Every structure is written in C-alpha cells, then in structure tokens.
C-alpha cells in the first residue's frame, strides 16, 4: 500500500515537473523573483547576525563601567578629580582616565578615532603588542609616538615614511611618529584607531590639565557592576554611567528589522508576496481551468489535482529558498556583503575589510521560511482547491 502511494506521489511529482517545464518562462521568472526576495531577507539576516555575534564575542572585554560627564545634554570633559570621589566606593579595583575623540581629516574627508591613555594601567595593556602586526606600543615616557590601524596607514599614505602631522585647535601642527601598526585581524575594532599617550592626546585636542574625556572603571567582582554603577550615579549626579552589560545589549538590538534599511528589506519582501498572492488568489487562467477539467474527466480526483499544485508550489518555493539562501551566504561570506556596503558604511572614507561569518541556526532558517515559503504554499493551494472543486463539464464550457 505504502509502495503504491509512493509511486503515485512520484508520478504526480513527474506531472508537476512537466507542468512547470511546459510553462518554463513563467515558472523561471517566479523562481527568480522569489529567490531574489529570499536573498535580500537572508543577506540582511546574515549580516546583522554576524555583526551581533562578533560584538558579543569581543565586547565581553569592554570596561566594566565607563563614565562620561554630561552638561546641557552633551558630553564634555570630565575632571580627573572625580577619581578621588570614587575612592570611597567599595569594590572599585581601578579607575583609568582616557582621552578619546575624533580627528576629521579635511583633505581626505576621513574621520580618525584618537585614543590617548596609559595602556600599562589597562587590563591586558602589557599584552597589547600581541595585537600588533609590526612595531610596539609606545611606553608612557615616549612622546609623539602612535600606533595606528590599517586604514589610517593607507589613508595617510604612510608606506615609505613613519611621520605625519595633525592640526591642533589653534591650527599649529603636532607631529607624530608611527611606532606600530595593528594587526589586520583586529580591523573590525582598530581599523580607524590612532592610539597615543595621554599627554599627546591632551596636547592634540588642547584639553586642559586635570580633565579627560572619560574614565574607565574596573570592579573587583563583575556581579557588583550594577550596584557600583548605582553608587557612582549617586556620588556623581552629572555623570553618565555606562555599564558593560548595557554596551553588550546595545549590539544585540542595534541591528534589527526595525532599522530603516531592515524595514525596507522586509517591506519589499512583503510587497512582492502580496503581489504574488494577489495574482494567485485572483484565480486560475482559463487555460489552467481547462487543464484541471480535462484531468477530472480522465478520472483524476480533487485530491490528486491539489497534490499536483502542492508539489508545484513546493518545488518552486523550496528551490527558490535554497538558491536564495545559498546566494545570500556567498554574498555575505565571499563578497563581504558588497551589496549592503554602500548603506552599511555610507560615506565612511575608512572602511574595514569585513570578514563576516554568519552562523545560521534553525530559528533563522524557520524565520525566512515562515516569511516566504509558507505564504506561497497557502496562496497557491487555496485557488487550486477552488478550481478543482468546479464540475468538469462547466470548466470545459459544456
């Protein structure tokens, strides 16, 4: 019995494939549009998932608490004296001052991120040389020496030389010597970075002595982060307190379907399906009705005709899903999401080489299936059932 049923389904599959082949231009165009929609959705899902994953992995080592002073709703320099106010809070292991800002290169229109700190005070600061491709981190007594990211080296054209100059706010020049370059494998974090000593950063931005841009606070027990953050907020009311869990949470929600670009992907997919479903639901063509009528006259049952339509839909949507998702994987992994780069990086002059490696889970695949294959199955089988229940003689015009 099972053997007979299997053979019957294979025969029906043969018929469905022949039917699709007979209308090959129509079937191929539906398949391609369908695959393109799935490609768009899957690419977006893969890019955002790969970036969130990377953020989750590396931002687990971000400072436990970061303090920034706010004034009139904007960030401003924080007095170093605040360090003393934190001394009374039990559980704080270390407070490291840092000057952290941007330098806009008006010639290249590039934005560099400048960080000035005493790296020896930072956790793992003594091991930072292992993250460099060449050279070494400047020691606190080495003035005017910097470590740069790959894109900074490229933008400043530092192939044959090691010195470059930036303007201070009063337009006098400050010269730096490159003492090292970050490894390419850290590009996703250090691509646009220029790291220097605290006095050099203070000099570059003309920040008065006794002030920095933020304070990195390290606590003895990570379970106490929230408690210590609350105590800091009470002790220093005008200070914004950012905790490590908050920073990690940001990256779990910052890439999402509700972002403008995500919404466009989703809405275009939905629009494509509405058009497809409307086309299908508006009824079968007279030719298709005639075909169904002939099959019924030949002895096919309604359930057999439904099975043919079901197989046709499964073949088209399943194949489109496979082709679309495979193409999306190739696009994201081997072409570094090149179609999304104009939006993902916008007018950025310094662009990291993205090495995205999406980790597709069953949930992600189900999400894409739920948005694509299932509505298509529903949209095709229902009109086929309506048509299959029509008496054969009326469909043939008899």
């Amino acid at each position, binding site marked *: 019995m099972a053997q007979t049923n299997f053979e019957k389904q294979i025969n029906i599959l043969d018929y469905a494939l022949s039917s699709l082949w007979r209308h090959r231009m129509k079937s191929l165009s539906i398949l391609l549009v369908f695959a393109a929609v799935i490609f768009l959705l899957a690419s977006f899902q893969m890019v955002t998932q790969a970036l969130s994953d990377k953020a989750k992995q590396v931002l687990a080592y971000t400072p436990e608490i970061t303090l920034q002073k706010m004034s009139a709703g904007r960030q401003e320099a924080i007095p170093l004296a605040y360090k003393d106010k934190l001394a009374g809070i039990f559980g704080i292991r270390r407070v490291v001052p840092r000057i952290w800002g941007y330098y806009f290169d008006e010639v290249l229109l590039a934005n560099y991120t400048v960080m000035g700190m005493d790296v020896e005070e930072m956790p793992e600061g003594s091991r930072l040389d292992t993250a460099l491709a060449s050279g070494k981190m400047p020691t606190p007594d080495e003035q005017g020496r910097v470590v740069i990211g790959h894109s900074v080296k490229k933008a400043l054209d530092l192939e044959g030389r090691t010195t470059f100059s930036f303007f201070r706010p009063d337009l006098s020049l400050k010269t730096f010597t490159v003492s090292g370059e970050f490894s390419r494998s850290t590009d996703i974090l250090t691509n*646009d*970075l220029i790291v220097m000593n605290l006095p050099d950063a203070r000099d570059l931005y003309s920040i008065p002595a006794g002030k920095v841009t933020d304070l990195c606070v390290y606590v003895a027990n990570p379970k106490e982060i929230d408690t210590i953050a609350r105590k800091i907020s009470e002790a220093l009311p005008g200070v914004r307190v950012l905790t490590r869990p908050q920073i990690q949470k940001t990256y779990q*929600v910052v890439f999402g379907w509700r972002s403008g670009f995500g919404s466009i992907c989703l809405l275009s997919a939905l629009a494509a399906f509405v058009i497809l479903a409307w086309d299908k639901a508006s009824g079968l063509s007279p030719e298709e009705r005639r075909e169904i009528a002939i099959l019924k006259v030949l002895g096919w049952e309604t359930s057999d005709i439904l099975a043919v339509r079901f197989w046709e839909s499964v073949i088209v949507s399943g194949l489109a899903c496979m082709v679309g998702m495979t193409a999306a994987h190739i696009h994201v992994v081997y072409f570094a999401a090149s179609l999304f780069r104009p939006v993902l990086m916008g007018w950025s002059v310094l662009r990291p080489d993205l090495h995205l490696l999406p980790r597709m889970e069953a949930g992600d695949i189900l999400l894409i299936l739920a948005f694509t294959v299932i509505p298509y199955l529903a949209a095709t089988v229902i009109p086929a059932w309506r048509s299959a229940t029509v008496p054969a003689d009326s469909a043939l015009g008899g």
Partner: protein
Amino acid sequence: MRPALVFSLFLCLLLALDGALFVDGLNRRKAEDATLAQLEVATSGLGLTDLAVATEARYTRHPAVSDAVAPFMDHPGAIEHFPTGAFWLPPQR
C-alpha cells in the same frame, strides 16, 4: 530519464554545493577563532566599546556610548543625514 530523477540530481547538486560551503565555513570559523585572542587583547587593553564598521558619524562609529539624540546634535536644526544611520537602530537603554 524521468523528470523526478532529473530534479533529484539537480537537488543533489545544490545540496553538494551547500555542503561544500558548510565545510568551508567550518574552516573559516577555525581560522577566525585563532584571531579571537588578538581581538580580546585589543578590546581589554584599549577599553574599546564598539565595532569599527561605519566611521562616517560619531553615533554610528560608537553607538554604544552615544545618545539617541546624537544624530541631531551637530548644529541647530540638524537632521540625521548619514546613510549608515539607516542601518542602525538607536541604542536602547
């Protein structure tokens, strides 16, 4: 040859391609894991808070430490005009 057989062969070809991509993905994952130690050192040694993906605007370079209103702070009447702003949701805290 039966159409179902031709279709099955085509399906096998697609699955083989997917299998090859999966194996290559595993190898890439191993290579990526090897560089993770460097990323960890860079993050904790410099106290980094963000990924360097979009460098055009402050709030997309460092979304984790920016305000939700940062895009509108550039000058009076400023609107959010950077393309990357379309890809990122404002941080929620």
